[in-house]
């Protein structure tokens, strides 16, 4: 029973207490770079979730085989292999998303969230905990990106997931889909997140 409870906490910490974007500030480049719409944010979140999950699984399975001195390069190769898979799959099946995410797909390799979880968690814990950790962190990251993308899309283009709710010639705050809007929207979202999480705890 105690173990079950721990796993639940393990899962939830990635979403709220240690949220990778709002609390730990990991993976900021894709967070700011691709979130001009909710769909892009969701796509990037799921791609990162997949790489994170697979790399956590592999690292956790072969952790005893990797010599401590070369563990970082070894982790990077494992991560880069899965990123290459994601790159090829997206290019073949979802070319639209591939175009939109552009340079940020190969850059999943240097997303500090993934290397951070491999080093800090998967290399020290068993398979099941590592999977749950990856799911928690990945879902926390996806939620953050989708929220930011949705906020920017609503303010900047008056739509959400490409569904427009204002008329064609309405004036929207275009600033929010331009680069400065990413910083400003994230600033206020972080503020709101901190406020809510300190109130609840």
């Amino acid at each position: 029973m105690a173990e079950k409870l721990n796993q639940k906490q393990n899962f939830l910490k990635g979403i709220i207490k240690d949220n990778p974007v709002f609390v730990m500030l990991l993976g900021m480049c894709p967070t700011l770079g691709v979130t001009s719409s909710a769909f892009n944010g969701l796509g990037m979140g799921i791609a990162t979730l997949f790489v994170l999950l697979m790399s956590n699984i592999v690292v956790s399975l072969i952790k005893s085989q990797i010599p401590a001195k070369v563990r970082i390069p070894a982790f990077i190769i494992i991560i880069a292999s899965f990123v290459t898979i994601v790159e090829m799959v997206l290019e073949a099946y979802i070319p639209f998303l591939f175009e939109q995410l552009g340079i940020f797909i190969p850059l999943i390799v240097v997303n500090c969230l993934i290397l951070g979880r491999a080093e800090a968690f998967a290399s020290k814990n068993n398979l099941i905990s590592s999977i749950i950790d990856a799911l928690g962190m990945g879902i926390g990251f996806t939620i953050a990106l989708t929220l930011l993308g949705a906020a920017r899309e609503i303010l900047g283009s008056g739509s959400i997931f490409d569904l427009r709710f204002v008329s064609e010639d309405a004036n929207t705050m275009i600033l929010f889909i331009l680069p400065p809007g990413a910083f400003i929207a994230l600033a206020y979202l972080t503020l709101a997140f901190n406020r809510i999480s300190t109130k609840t705890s």
Partner: protein
Amino acid sequence: MEYIIILIAAVFVNNIVLSQFLGICPFLGVSNKVSTSVGMSGAVLFVMTIATLATYLLHEFVLVPSGMDYLRTITFILVIASLVQMVEIILKKVSPALYQALGVFLPLITTNCAVLGVAILALGLENGSLLKAVFFAIANSIGFALALIVFASIREHLELANIPKGMKGVPINLLVAGLLSLAFLGFTGLV
């Protein structure tokens, strides 16, 4: 002329940090003092130039002829990681003074996405050549330095400002970055 356009585009119009969102981690992480941000900028200039030189050659003479372009991401990150390690060892031996100045920043650069990002972007330049790719890397690291140093000097002033409690720390830094990015947006259409 073409090179001047690359320089202006990389430094002002498409600033690597403020409009392309590469290298945000060091931008937010090591920008609390002007002196550290100067050190970081120097290290990035150094590594980005050498890394782009190496990856461009690797891509042109190994990956493309052997039809293994799909291995780009894996090979580039490995080359960058080992290059950083090598630069660190050589600097320590050859120029201890420079090592003192840049040393602590070097390990951080492996996971600086600006380095990998510029190496990949340099492959997509129009009428690309080795010289152009290297120049592109230098121009982008100047852009990185400009953004980082300006941001660090604003943050030094923020220390003394009276900020609402909830805005302290991350939110105010992001807002400042947003305003800085807005200022750079004014360069749109320059080239």
